[in-house]
């Protein structure tokens, strides 16, 4: 619980508020490098008999298995009821089939298995890790199958989960980082479903009825809307049988419709939220790029140079190394089904907030003007390609890749081709892509802290 560890660099900042927790897994995926000489995981794919897509990598070295079932059922599907997807997911292990929450917990813990469900803006994912020996695997898989297909949404459990969610939302309000993050998404995405936080709001959570959860589950937890990723100590036949069992309870159903397009911001904005903290959190963002975007590689490497490579990024150099203004500063593109945000952030002592914000924005503008130097590009390419083996070393890494490749329908040779595509990007392509895709005049900026500025002020469209 209290590890009493402090990291020098960004690791812990990413884990703890510097970069929002919900985003952290995605960031890891953004850091995909390129295959060098060694083999990338051999991905096998097929469909279950009721139409769920399966991606599988055999990993016979350790007697364990990871399964991740992903539904196109992120919070962007919440509609008018913010938090609907995430409340549905939160109820999965509160009772399913013949088992109540206690029985489900016993079944999993008794065999050392772990099950978790998570929701981001695009996906609901349910993850299972288990030993492959028996009876562990049978028990774990039967439990997963029930949880996916037959959650009971027991009313008393729902009220408890609802009340605890309301407490968690109030705790978010204690955190300047969480407050800033939520405000920034609202400012960047406005009326688009990506604007809302997956955890919902106090008002929406208080109002969600059981029927809505049941309906959401019935609509989206269906085979045609599902991807099953499997990594572990199984052969193809074993994985096929497993995937059949996992999806057996799901009706075929239909895939979810595409999400609406994201509009670019019409103008820049500045929202200063007063907060009794010693630091001011500064975030700036706008709609960025989507998965499979034609500019993906130039934007990805460019951002790596600008603010995506930890201690050696330009932002880190300007904000931390040269000026000591912040422990952590970063930028990232979060590619989603529709363009997710391009986001920059830092935290600094209240009286330095204005200075730090200016340095951050000037750093972006300079980068947009001149693009990366050849030396910066070469260093970034070496970092990304040289570090690739680290990114695919564990089953835990690989299952994440399978989920992304499968969910966003990226080509199965995505990892194999990554090196070449990274190596092919030129400095001019990066400059050009940033010039077209990042507009410093139309950034939504949010500050949360005790600053001297008026509470809300809008930066005109100039």
């Amino acid at each position: 619980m209290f590890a009493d560890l402090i990291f020098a660099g960004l690791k812990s900042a990413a884990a703890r508020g510097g970069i929002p927790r919900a985003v952290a897994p995605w960031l890891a995926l953004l850091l995909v490098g390129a295959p060098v000489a060694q083999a990338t995981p051999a991905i096998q794919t097929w469909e279950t008999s009721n139409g769920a897509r399966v991606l599988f990598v055999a990993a016979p070295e350790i007697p364990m298995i990871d399964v991740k079932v992903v539904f196109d059922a992120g919070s962007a599907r919440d509609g008018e009821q913010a938090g609907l997807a995430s409340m549905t997911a939160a109820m999965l292990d509160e009772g399913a089939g013949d088992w109540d929450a206690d029985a489900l917990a016993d079944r999993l813990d008794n065999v050392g298995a772990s099950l978790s469900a998570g929701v981001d803006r695009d996906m609901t994912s349910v993850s299972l890790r288990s030993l492959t020996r028996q009876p562990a695997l049978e028990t774990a898989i039967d439990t997963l199958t029930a949880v996916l297909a037959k959650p009971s949404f027991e009313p008393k459990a729902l009220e408890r989960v609802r009340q605890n969610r309301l407490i968690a939302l109030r705790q978010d309000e204690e955190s300047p980082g969480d407050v800033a993050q939520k405000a920034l998404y609202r400012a960047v995405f406005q009326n688009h479903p990506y604007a809302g936080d997956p955890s919902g709001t106090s008002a929406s959570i208080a109002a969600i009825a059981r029927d809505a959860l049941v309906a959401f589950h019935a609509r989206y937890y269906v085979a045609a809307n599902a991807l099953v990723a499997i990594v572990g100590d199984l052969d193809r036949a074993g994985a096929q049988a497993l995937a059949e069992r996992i999806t057996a309870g799901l009706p075929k159903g239909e895939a979810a419709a595409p999400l609406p397009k994201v509009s670019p911001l019409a103008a820049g904005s500045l929202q200063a939220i007063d907060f009794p903290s010693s630091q001011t959190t500064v975030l700036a963002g706008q709609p960025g790029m989507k998965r499979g975007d034609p500019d993906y590689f130039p934007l990805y490497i460019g951002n790596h140079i600008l603010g995506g490579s930890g201690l050696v990024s330009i932002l880190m150099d300007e904000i931390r190394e040269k000026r000591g203004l912040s422990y952590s500063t970063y930028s990232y593109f979060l590619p989603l089904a529709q363009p997710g945000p391009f986001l920059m952030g830092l935290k600094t002592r209240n009286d330095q907030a204005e200075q730090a914000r200016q340095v951050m924005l000037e750093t972006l503008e300079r980068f947009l003007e001149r693009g990366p130097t050849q030396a910066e590009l070469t260093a970034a390419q070496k970092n990304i390609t040289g570090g690739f083996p680290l990114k695919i070393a564990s089953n835990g890494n690989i299952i994440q890749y399978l989920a992304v490749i499968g969910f966003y329908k990226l080509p199965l040779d995505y990892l194999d081709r990554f090196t070449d595509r990274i190596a092919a990007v030129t400095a001019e392509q990066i400059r050009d892509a940033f010039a077209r895709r990042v507009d410093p005049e139309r950034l939504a900026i949010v500050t949360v802290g005790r600053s001297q500025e008026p509470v809300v002020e809008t930066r005109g469209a100039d």
Partner: protein
Amino acid sequence: MQRRFIAFLICLLPLVAAAEPKVYERRLDNGLKVLVKPDHRAPILTSQLWYRIGSSYEYGGITGVSHVLEHMMFQGTESHPPGEFSRIVAENGGEENAFTGRDFTAYYQNLAKDRLEISFKLESDRMRHLALADKEFTKELEVVKEERRMRTDDDPQSLTYERFNAVAFDASPYGNPVIGWPGDLEQLQLADLSDWYRLWYAPNNATLVVAGDVDPEQVFSLAETYFGPLAAEEIRPPKTRSEPAQHGEKRLEVKAPAKESYLLMGYKTPAVADAAEDWEPYALEILSSVLDGGDSSRFARELVRGDQIAASAGASYSVFQRLPGLFLFDGVPAKGHGVADLEAALRAQIERVRSEPVSAAELERVRNQVVAAKVYEQDSLFYQAMMLGQLESIGLDWRLSETYVDALAAVTPEQVQTVAKKYLTPDRLTVAVLDPQPLDGKQPVRPSLGIGGQTHVR
């Protein structure tokens, strides 16, 4: 929130595989211990250098010096300008970082298997040739102050934890925050860092751990090449204030802008290094899992789901520490309950483990979880190496990582009850309550460096 902390801790637990990959050990003439754990699953390695120095070696007035020095280790040596270390590692595709704890300071690089030399070359250089320049120090100290604001001052639960430790320990350096007290950071001088560096950064005060797709003999040979020429230092064992017996329960209240209250309770407990009986720490660890090891544990079943007194409730204990620590409980009350209700419920749970043995079924469940976690651990090279480094750094034998699972599995219900009766007693207890203050901005702001707390950080 507590859930997350605990889940993370479970990852850190020393479940390094017992049977599987063997560990090779060598000590260089200058005293550097080198441990190599071959694992050929993927063409990568982790190289970790662990120093036996951390906040528990610090004394009043210089708290935080170990952590600031860790930051300065990235700010240049006699032969490499500031930032070059990180640039070289990055150009070689490496991931790197460092972390400071109470009992150790560790540096690591994760690299492709053919890049080990990069790590050794750079780490051996900064072990004895750090530049420690004024300009970088002044700037980095500001970075650390920002880090402190982020981690502690602006996080009400972290702040509560910091102040809780300061009250729980009368004399032990575990009462100090790893990141340092604000006043100490204000008065820290470059000379304090130079002294600290000279005293503790030496081959005979470090353990080098390499795990991954490597050949042990080649690692030893490379270690000899780069670390071999470094001179040993006379390391004087630190004079650590030991914690005197506590006389009666202690309580504190922490006021901070917040929306929800928070409760922390800690009982003084021994660790492996100082336990009266070898099995006691393992019995305490089993106890923490019975109470809070998964959704079927007592706290989740009875406090969160059953009585619905807690929105979250946790129990934790660390077997492997250099000095005696705390068996911790924490929680957030559920709606309709105050922090007093939660405290009463936790005390009732504690009374129960004192008065009756845990069931055979509960113990069996914990054993199965421990064994499974040991298998899962093999999926992370980093944590396997980390466990070896941590054990050596706190003065224990890395082989404890191999006997850990068996030691846990051997614990009996009677032993769990025995340690509960012996250690979960009021005279060992400290209770902290977070008293939420309005967030509406009408309150005076905490001075950014005036008061402070401790750090609980991953």
